[in-house]
């Protein structure tokens, strides 16, 4: 049993013993910087995706098939596209040909892939050859992208179909895609429990180059469906699954390197999967932030340690987490409709944060209140106390789907109540 398991187990036991309750915040929230809410309303169904375009704009998309471009500074609606007739499942922002325009690619379960020019606010391309519901999109090589779902396609930058990979299994439904190296020629797909590695080969004919998707390797299966897939570094990527396991894979040999956070009784009561991994974010090509069940954890992939964690952070499953305010705070959003801000406890929080802020540290350092030098030398995982709830952002009346940090413009969140909320500092 690894140290992880021990730690997690210990937490479990504690939880069982004293029925750990979800922390509540009372009174003044001196560390909560978000003092203004802007309700951005346009969507008529659940808003599932938020994407930052640049420091002035972000894009939201949802089940109503509408894409809305928001000005994040003034919180104004810039434009909207009645993009699809069915829910939008994935979005991808790429640079245009001339690098002077922003293109947005949307995939939807209405089997269309559409390319939008955000600056001009119009549809550039409508690709219908995908044939099945589009689940995920990934940019590969230069100006090409892969779309996946029940089929796997490679598209050129002008929307031309370059290659289709025949998926052998009938039920195959790729839900996640990541590229694993810098050149973007190799990518990993997650299909239920299974991870598969593909690569794009360019075949040089006499006059022209053609591209083909080749299957490289099938990776050992997870116990349950893979819910999160994230590249960590050039040599490493991570996958998390419903049973709570986070696997670290080598991007070179495609063998599992480490197994984090394995649970014996992962199904929990009434198959609720209380430890399921909903989301993994990577920081500094080294640290993994994972939304696990109703809590979250921060792992170090190099030293293979659990840096800190909070088992019960929310009343319901955490859907996403991200550092906000340059890492001064960690924001987690959950199906319980709240966004919570976490940080380190200190007696004089304002002052402490001010001191920390002035030191030019990275988000991880700020969050843990320690610099990397110290971090590498400290061996004891007990060094880091449980993060403390510093603020709660209540505004959504349904589950919060996504949060994005928009730097100085604050934080944006979207949720099941059809709203996008801008949280302004």
């Amino acid at each position: 049993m690894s140290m992880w398991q021990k730690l997690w187990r210990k937490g479990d036991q504690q939880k069982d013993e004293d029925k750990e309750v979800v922390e509540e915040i009372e009174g003044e929230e001196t560390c909560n910087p978000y003092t203004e809410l802007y309700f951005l309303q346009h969507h008529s169904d659940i808003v599932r995706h938020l994407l930052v375009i640049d420091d002035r704009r972000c894009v939201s998309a949802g089940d109503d098939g509408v894409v809305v471009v928001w000005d994040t500074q003034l919180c104004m609606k810039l434009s909207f596209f009645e993009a699809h007739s069915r829910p939008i499942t994935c979005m991808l922002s790429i640079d245009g040909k001339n690098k002077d325009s922003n293109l947005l690619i949307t995939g939807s379960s209405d089997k269309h892939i559409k390319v939008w020019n955000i600056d001009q606010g119009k549809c550039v391309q409508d690709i219908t050859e995908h044939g099945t519901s589009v689940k995920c999109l990934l940019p590969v090589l230069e100006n090409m992208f892969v779309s996946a779902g029940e089929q796997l396609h490679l598209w050129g930058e002008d929307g031309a179909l370059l290659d289709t990979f025949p998926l052998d299994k009938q039920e195959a439904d790729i839900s996640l895609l990541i590229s694993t190296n810098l050149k973007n020629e190799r990518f990993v797909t997650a299909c239920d429990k299974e991870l598969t590695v593909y690569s794009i080969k360019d075949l040089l004919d006499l006059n022209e180059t053609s591209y083909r998707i080749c299957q490289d390797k099938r990776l050992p299966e997870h116990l349950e469906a893979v819910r999160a897939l994230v590249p960590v570094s050039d040599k490493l990527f991570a996958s998390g699954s419903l049973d709570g396991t986070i696997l670290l894979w080598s991007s070179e040999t495609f063998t599992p390197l480490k197994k984090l956070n394995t649970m014996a009784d992962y199904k929990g009561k009434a198959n609720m999967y209380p430890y399921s991994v909903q989301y993994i974010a990577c920081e500094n090509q080294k640290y993994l932030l994972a939304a696990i069940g109703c809590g979250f954890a921060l792992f170090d992939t190099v030293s293979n340690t659990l840096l800190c964690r909070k088992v019960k952070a929310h009343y319901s499953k955490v859907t996403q987490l991200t550092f906000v305010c340059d890492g001064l705070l960690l924001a987690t959003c959950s199906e319980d409709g709240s966004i919570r801000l976490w940080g380190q406890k200190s007696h004089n929080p304002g002052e402490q944060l001010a001191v920390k802020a002035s030191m030019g540290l990275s988000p991880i350092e700020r969050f843990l209140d320690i610099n990397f030098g110290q971090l590498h030398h400290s061996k004891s995982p007990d060094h880091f106390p449980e993060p403390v709830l510093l603020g709660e952002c209540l505004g959504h009346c349904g589950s919060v789907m996504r949060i994005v940090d928009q730097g100085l413009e604050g934080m944006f969140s979207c949720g099941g109540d059809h709203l996008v909320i801008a949280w302004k500092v």
Partner: protein
Amino acid sequence: MMDLNMFGADLPYNMYIQEEESKVNDGWNFDLEDYLAPHSQVPHPWNRQPAGETHLDVDFILVAEFSELEGPREVLTIPKGGSSNFNITDFSVRIMSLDHQTTTKQGFHLIEDSQVTFSEIKDSVFAFVHHFALYDRHARGYVRPFAISYITPDSRKLLQFYEEISQQMKKVVRYLKYGNKLVFKNSLEMHLMDLHYTKAEMLLRMRSRKSSHQVSDEDVCYKNLRTLEANITETQNVLHTIKLSLVDKKLEHRFARLEEKAKIETPRVKSDSWSLQEWEEIEATYSVSNVSGSYDGSSLSDNTTGWTLFPDTRYYRPKTVKISSGRQFDIHLQGLHELCSWGHREGMQKLRHLYQFFKRDMAVLQVESNDKTFMDPGPSALYFGEDCIGVNLLTGVDKKCMGCHCLQADIPGLLFNKCSSIESLSFKSAASSFRSVNDDDAESMKSAISATGSPVVNFGLYNENDVPNTFELEKDNIDLYSNNEFIRHLTFKIQQLDIDISKDEPMGPIENAEDRTTIDNVKKFVESFGDGNKERSLDDVEKLEEGNGAISEMVVSTSTLLGEDFEERSSGTSDHEDFTCECDLSDVETEGMRDRLHTLTAENVGQLEYEKEAKNEKEAGSIKIAPETEKTSVLAQSIKNESMLERDSEGMTSYDLIRLNIENLIPVDFDSPEQESTRFPSNADNDSPDADNLACGFGILHIMTKYASIKHVIYSILIGRSVIVVGTPDLEGEVKNIVNALKIFLTSYHRNHRSFIPWTKCLPSLYKMTDLKLVGVCRPERKPFDRFIPSAIKKLCTVFDVKRREIFCPVYQGYYLSLLDNRVRNYKMEEMLTTLIKSIMVEISSKAFIYFHSFCIGPAGVGRQDYKFLQQQSSSFQRRVSNFMAKIGVHDSDAHIIEFLCETIKQQLIQDHFQTRASVSHMPERPLATHNDLCCQMMKC
């Protein structure tokens, strides 16, 4: 001259006109029968005078009809008789000939309206004509064409106000047409029942006679039956078309409400109370049996049921109708009032308002339309509740323009009296002020205008002249104003200040202590403003409270202007001072006030002080006391009333007593529900008329005495935190009262979009809370409070649970509201409390003014856009804010109020910026501010 040949029916008229044209100069020399010879003083329809003069000397409105019996005819004119030198009959012909309604459609269909302008340049007659059709079962093709025309000798009026006239005409016609449609529908329904009844009877007769009668007779019967069938189908078709077009539920409700009201006042319905003059003009008298069968309703008199727009068809007893395939043209056609029922009343009222508004001189209209742009409070005006302007921050005012006319007329409205200035400016409200006034009695109209021109502190009795006599008697009854100590204290203050400010000033005799208070306040304010660090003493505040609202407003207005023109005080300010006081005081007083302010703003205060004193000596007796005394006498009277009432009705609650008192005080025309509905046209229909009648802030005394911790709720409102008053269905009245009382504190009160809902069945979603600041919500009995209010709402809004008497809100720790809270017990009269509240608001606003100008747009500076320093910045900024606040004497929670007020101004400026620039169509969202630094607590009240 227009060619009228196309109009065959009017040949006689046509000939008449042409003939006369040729002979107008030589007169009639033929021997004719008396009746054929034209009358020697035939008023000519068109102007035959040299150019520039016209016979048509006043505007008037003409409603004309193209009668199928008589041809074009006038139905009525406003004013009665129209213009004296004008042949209305001829003009009707002309107007009705303008309508070119041609249609190719078969069968019954709805006819669209058309609007045309009609000009006869030679004769200087110009008309705006709105053609429309009303439906009448007895008319040909069910249709009777009508036209309303606005006739004026001034063409510019029509050009300039085309849009407005067109809009208003449409509104008038909307009433008429909808009323008519309802009447038509009813009449058709009844007719249909009659037809069915006749058919049934006929079948019965046929069956019984079948054996005995001849075949030919039977033939006739069958023919009749066929005709009957055809009639039924036709009526059904028409009914179907009409029913489809009856979609304006709002208007229907309005008519229903009028009818309800009329039923209550049945005995007086037809008399003067409804002021339907035209009813008498119309020759035909209405009779129920004429129109339809009779009602069975035994409880209701025939008269009432006959009038109803919403009859219960169950009580209708059908009758047999005479079967004829053709139409009869000898029957009487219904008058306009019969055709439109309540629509006629409403439409005519509107038409009269339209006339009253547009009949005025072109110049007046133009000036008003210019001024109307300033009607709404400027973006930099801070206002509370319905009628209290705290301060004008004067951010967007162009200094160069300050002296010009338009602003002179405008700014008093902004500064002081939102209501009164609006009333006189807009068409809509002008109309409402003319409401209960008949066309003819201009006298009463004048008084109505002056009544609405009452100042902010809404006693509405400023202009009565008989009051000062009674004052001496009443004076002793009132503690507040005869408080010798208070006056002595003030005198002392005055002396002190006079020494401070102008040591070389020769001291004039102090005639009137109250008067001096004003001056002192102004002086003091000038002083404290000039020296930012100097704290204003609390005495000052107290003085403001002890005095009346007018005084405190004077202070603030002066200060605002001083603030704007601080540097150039000597040059241009005197002008503004002039008009700032104009609106608040009656004409006579203005002179005095103006002079005094003149002196104050001038550089050499000391020197001019003497002149002012001299003037005061002259005026003190007659003028200065007037506003004070009137108010006090009113108060005294109401106190008397109250004590009387207390004796009379022991069972009554204090709330009822106050209400009774208020009702006694409020002028009659103020009670009219329409006045309210024009003020809030958007959703007035949704609210109970009860709540609409109440003045803003009504019941505040009761609420403040009943709920101990209410000041915390008020604090929430004043820091922009939405307040949700939750009550179970049985507490509806109480919740409404609370909302109504607390709305006096709302800073975002606007005539068109309300920031409050007195009572709603479901909790509004959170994003609506950016606009809604005060909501009364019904909580179902079975749903527990904690589950009813989601945590997000609880965090972002203040929740007041009336049932359990609990408030969950940030705690107030400050001076102003505590002061208010402490003083509530001293007040027995609500007006006094509202005045106190307003004075406190004005006081707070004045602080906000200083904060805004001296800090927000001054040393507050621009934050550095960097997270690294975010926390530092924010904490250092907070320190600077609190330091500054301390300097101007604002502490603790009051600082949050001031900050919010300034934020409100900023928000209004942003809004204005986007609204006035058409190129920027999208306005940024309004934020909902959260207060993380405030600790919410549950407390009992």
